[in-house]
């Protein structure tokens, strides 16, 4: 559960400047609070892995025409850590047939439970703390109530769980944000080159809602037993294997092409494969 630090694999998406982290510091004003906000760290992207989705239980005997399922929509940290350090509030936009379809959750755990009968798309908007980002981020999730396997009656014990993994990326975070979360378990912070010293967070910049918050993480959440496990190792393995195969084919083809170029035009490709 220690904070994951990057820097092992050089991302090739860096467009030709791989390995060099340019840190540009813009002019900072006198005010210490503004100082931390205006200094931004280029090429030091901070990412926040999240999982968002729904869990729906069939109500069985207690079900009525209009309320057949009890469901919960939520946004949690991928490792079940507290998102409150980054996310200030989450707004869930429900189907207009609900009362007050715009539901605002001001503190973690960012979730909402309701009863209903219909499936619809829920719009989830993440609002961040001022030193993180002034723009909101929108996610969309389709609420699933009915299981894939339509045979037999629905179980009240086993819910229908749909979760999606994603990462919220902040491409050039402010210094203040970086300071604040550099050791936070929910956040992936890049490894800075040696000699980069950043001071401890300025106490003049308090977070809102810090006092009233109770436990914000979802490690012992009542629904945590249904949470899905997302392991990148699996996909990485598959991808690496696939890449190897493709690369082998490419080498083979290149060899074939060079042979073909040397010889007169053949009507059929060479028939012998390895």
């Amino acid at each position, binding site marked *: 559960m220690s904070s994951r630090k990057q820097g092992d*694999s050089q991302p090739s998406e860096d467009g*030709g400047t791989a390995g060099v982290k340019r840190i540009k510091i813009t002019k900072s004003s006198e005010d210490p609070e503004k100082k931390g906000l205006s200094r931004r760290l280029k090429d030091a992207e901070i990412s926040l892995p999240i999982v968002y989705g729904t869990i729906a239980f069939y109500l069985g005997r207690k079900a009525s025409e209009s309320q057949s399922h009890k469901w919960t929509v939520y946004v949690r940290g991928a490792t079940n850590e507290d998102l409150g350090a980054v996310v200030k509030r989450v707004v869930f936009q429900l189907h207009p047939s609900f009362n007050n379809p715009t539901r605002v959750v001001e503190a973690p755990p960012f979730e909402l439970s309701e009863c209903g009968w219909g499936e619809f798309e829920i719009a989830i908007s993440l609002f961040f703390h001022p030193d993180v980002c002034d723009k909101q981020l929108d996610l969309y999730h389709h609420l699933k109530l009915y299981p894939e396997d339509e045979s037999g009656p629905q179980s009240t014990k086993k819910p229908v769980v749909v979760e999606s993994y994603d990462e919220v990326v902040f*491409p050039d975070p402010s210094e203040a944000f970086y300071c604040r979360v550099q050791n936070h378990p929910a956040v992936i912070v890049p490894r800075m080159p040696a000699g980069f010293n950043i001071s401890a967070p300025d106490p003049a910049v308090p977070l809102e809602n810090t006092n009233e918050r109770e436990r914000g993480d979802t490690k012992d959440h009542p629904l945590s037993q249904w949470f899905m496990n997302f392991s990148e190792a699996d996909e990485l393995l598959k991808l690496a*294997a696939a890449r190897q195969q493709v690369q082998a084919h490419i080498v083979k*083809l290149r*060899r074939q092409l060079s042979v073909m170029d040397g010889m007169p035009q053949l009507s059929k490709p060479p028939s012998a494969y390895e």
Partner: protein
Amino acid sequence: MDAKDILGLPKNQLPIPQEKKSRPPKEPQRKPDGISREVYALTGGLAPLMPSVDASQLRRHPPPDEKITWQWLPFTNSARKDDLQLFHWVRVVNGVPPTGDYAFAKYNKSVNIIKYTDEEYEKYLTDPTWTKEETDQLFDLCERFDLRFIVIADRFPSSRTVEELKDRYYSVSRALLSARAAPGDIANDPLVKEPYNMSQEVERKRALSMVLSQTKHQERKDTEVLAEAKRITESRMAAKGPEESELPVAANIGPENSQRAVVSGDAVTPSNATLPSAITASSTLMADNASTLASLRMLRVYLRTYALDQMVQAASASAGHRTIKRVEQTLQELGVNLKPKVPTKAVCAEHLELRKEILSLLNLQKQRTPRGDQDRPFMPDPLSFGGDRFGKRDQKRKAPGRSSEAAQSPSQSKRPRKMKASDI
């Protein structure tokens, strides 16, 4: 029909839609009277938008009391300046030849060229670069050739460009017009409203000829740069930041650097044909990549899946729809999710690289078998071997092996089909 009963809709609604349906197909089948079926079919079986020929007139017989003869008679043409008399067949009705001018004389139109007197020339039209003689010659040619400046330029005794001639002619005409008429009257004359701008015209024609003579390579580069510029301006609009000036420079440096790297890397490629296309392809790729990165950076926050989508789109910008489908097919054959289930930074990077590699593989295959055989993008036999090998390797691992076994079964069931397709 039962449904309509249940819904309680009235039944007599049915005949109306049926009628409507039967009417349109009948229209083209019913030919109009007056012309034969085959002739009507020549027009495509539909009535023309504007009746070119009145169909009813075609079958019409001339009234019986008229006696028609055809006679070989002389005629004169009012459009001619000489008195040339030619002969042609004329339809004579009851011994009376048709009157009126030659039918085609009315098409002899010409342009109204303004004529100036010597006085007027002295007063309004003198110009340092033009002598009176030249101007006279110009106007004479203009009249003879109806303002076809290309011909005029060709016939002009001293060499002047088309733009110069046009400029002189239009400015003279405008000056004459404004001198002769009251200023209020001619305000709407196009000569006055939109004066000829010689420098603009020269520039425009030069630009046109440049565009026309661009090579394909040049064209591609231009579209890249334009797309990049567009993206940069769009992202600038989206979020204003102090680092604006850095980004275009960075984006420009990116493609140049990568181009150099690509050239040295590609020196090893065996086939000569692949070399220039590979360079342009990968430089386009790099340019797209750099500009996508730039536009992503302008967003203060984004989702990793969104970023991956953008990069994938940028990478397959040069590929057609079919190629993209084939890439996806290949990914599925390899047992890889089209959209990663766990999109971490590393996974997304690997996914993107894999897609790019598949693209280059498909390009190579296209070169090897250019006949456009779309059946199986991958050589089936080695792939099924690969599937086997992959499964075995995975089972050696501990936890991941279990979940990947589930993924194995679809590809395993596919294998027998693949074998069949390959046995052509």
